[in-house]
């Protein structure tokens, strides 16, 4: 595999990149996920554990049998092909570097399988190790590498086969927080330089935001939201995404500048005037808390009970349980003391209309 058989050669051709609808049925679990990624595009599958993200990735790789749908890469149908003939590169969650081979031979493994002679394969592998900054570790065995180094070797190994489709399964999950930050930045650079389509599975919203051009949120085997990272972060459409991006999210019916929430028991005043089914979102930091009912009141005011109180960096996150609205509120430690917040105590909560964000459901 020394020639340019990567997706770059086909870029711009009709149907270039990945075009798939991944259908897997297994026992009680059903996955049905339309998925597309153009050449050079990085798509993140974001979702809770058990949502089917990894299954989707394994199905794209041919490691799990699909029971319908289609998988096309640069126009070619992959479904009838075994994994070894799919022109893919895969980075596994715990890397799965072959323990009996050196870093160099791990990376050379793919080119060798592609028909390159031993010397040529090693030359290509050495180049890739150099590119991920591990030229000095060519003869190291996987057990001698740190987690971050192993991750980079795994990436080099996957890219060395010049895949048309790069699959990354939780590529940063096995790393500690500090290494994770470094490797995330490095991975972003390598993904930017990759000409083919890339699909990344993660349950960490930060990984998805930093690494992906587009995010597909998967819950229970179905796509529930799709969009650019900023769009997903600003306009969550499910409670799961709202929790991930740290927003309070409600669904309701808009009429002029008012939104009647779900069960109709409460309304929120907003600035944007839409009509019909909408989502309302606001940040926890937009919620103000009062011990007694404030005068000259903001329009969006409700009575609640204090639930859990947790420290979040230099802020304190208060969970508000209410008859009408449950919400998260961020306040300063000083405010916690002034308001004498404790679990179960009654509280008034308010949100300015200007702090809310309304968008069509």
């Amino acid at each position, binding site marked *: *595999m020394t020639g340019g058989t990567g997706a770059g050669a086909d870029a711009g051709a009709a149907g270039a990149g990945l075009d798939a609808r991944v259908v897997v049925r297994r026992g009680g679990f059903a996955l049905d996920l339309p998925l597309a990624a153009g050449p050079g595009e990085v798509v993140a599958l974001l979702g809770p554990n058990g949502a089917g993200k990894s299954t989707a990735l394994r199905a794209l*790789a*041919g*490691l799990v049998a699909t029971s319908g749908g289609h998988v096309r890469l640069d126009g070619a149908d992959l479904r009838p092909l*075994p*994994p*070894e*003939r*799919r022109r*893919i*590169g*895969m980075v*596994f969650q715990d890397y*799965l570097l*072959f*323990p*009996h081979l050196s870093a160099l031979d791990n990376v050379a*493994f*793919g080119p060798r*399988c*592609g028909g390159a002679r031993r010397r040529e394969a090693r030359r290509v592998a050495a180049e890739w190790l150099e590119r991920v900054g591990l030229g000095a570790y060519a003869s190291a065995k996987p057990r001698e590498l740190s987690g971050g180094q192993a991750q980079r070797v795994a990436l080099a*190994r*996957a890219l060395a*086969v010049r895949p048309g489709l790069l*699959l990354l399964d939780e590529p940063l999950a096995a790393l500690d927080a500090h290494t994770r930050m470094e490797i995330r930045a490095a991975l972003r650079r390598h993904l930017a330089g990759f000409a083919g389509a890339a699909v990344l599975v993660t349950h960490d919203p930060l990984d998805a935001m930093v690494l992906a051009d587009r995010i597909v949120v998967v819950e229970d085997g179905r796509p529930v939201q799709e969009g650019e990272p900023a769009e997903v972060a600003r306009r969550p459409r499910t409670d799961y995404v709202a929790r991930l991006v740290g927003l309070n999210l409600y669904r309701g019916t808009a009429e002029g500048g008012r939104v009647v929430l779900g069960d109709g028991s409460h309304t929120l005043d907003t600035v944007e005037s839409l009509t019909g089914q909408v989502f309302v979102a606001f940040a926890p930091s937009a919620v103000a808390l009062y011990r007694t009912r404030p005068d000259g009141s903001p329009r969006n005011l409700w009575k609640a009970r204090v639930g859990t109180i947790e420290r979040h960096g230099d802020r304190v996150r208060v969970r508000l349980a209410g008859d009408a609205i449950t919400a998260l509120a961020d306040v300063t430690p000083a405010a916690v003391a002034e308001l004498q917040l404790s679990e179960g105590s009654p509280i008034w909560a308010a949100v300015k209309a200007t702090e809310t964000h309304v968008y069509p459901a």
Partner: protein
Amino acid sequence: MTAPDTVPGRPPLVLVLPALAGLAFLVLPLAGLLVRAPWSTLGTRLARPEVLDALELSLVTATIATVLCVLFGVPLAWTLARVPFPGVRLVRALVTVPLVLPPVVGGVALLLAAGRRGILGGPLESLGITLPFTTAGVVLAQAFVAMPFLVISVEGALRAADLRYEEAAATLGATRWTTFRRVTLPLVAPGVAAGAVLCWARALGEFGATITFAGNFPGETQTMPLAVYLALETDPQAAIVLSLVMLAVSVVVLAALRDRWTGAS
């Protein structure tokens, strides 16, 4: 000391005494062998041609039998561990039959299959190949009784190996054969080695199937165990010497396997 160290009580005699008796039962015969060995004449007795012939024949045939077991047993183990097919449990049971079968019965079975008028022996005979009562027959008898040891050991290693390495190899473009050769086999190499050593030791000690299927011709089919048995009738001292040699070989095998079988793991 604030930590509550619990000291287990003295081990009960009802367990300790049978344990000691069992140990003595295993060790005493070997001690007898060592005590009664004609140490002064050991060198000259070992150098006698019939002893050397039997030793050489045993080492050569056991080694060839082991090579055959590896060549056929490893693929068989891989098939049992990796290829789901109907009746896999039956096949696995069949593979282990020689393990529990009395070796003499194995020899009779081999005669019926590969003997001159056997289902395989007939056609082979017409091609000019004779197996029973030849050195090749010794190898066949040894391989028959020893192969299950290898297959079971390798299959266990294959089942314990992480399948995901094979998946990783596939995503890198490796065919199943390449994956087997470059990933699976190196990963289970310790299991193959242990199986091969065990297999070799079993082949070396083979008696029943060999004497039934291959006979007892000095220099051709008379292996060490057969020589020991024969010498016991005519020259007990020689039998002791031959036994000592086999004991030494067994100890070496045990030493080779100690990390896997007797280690503190």
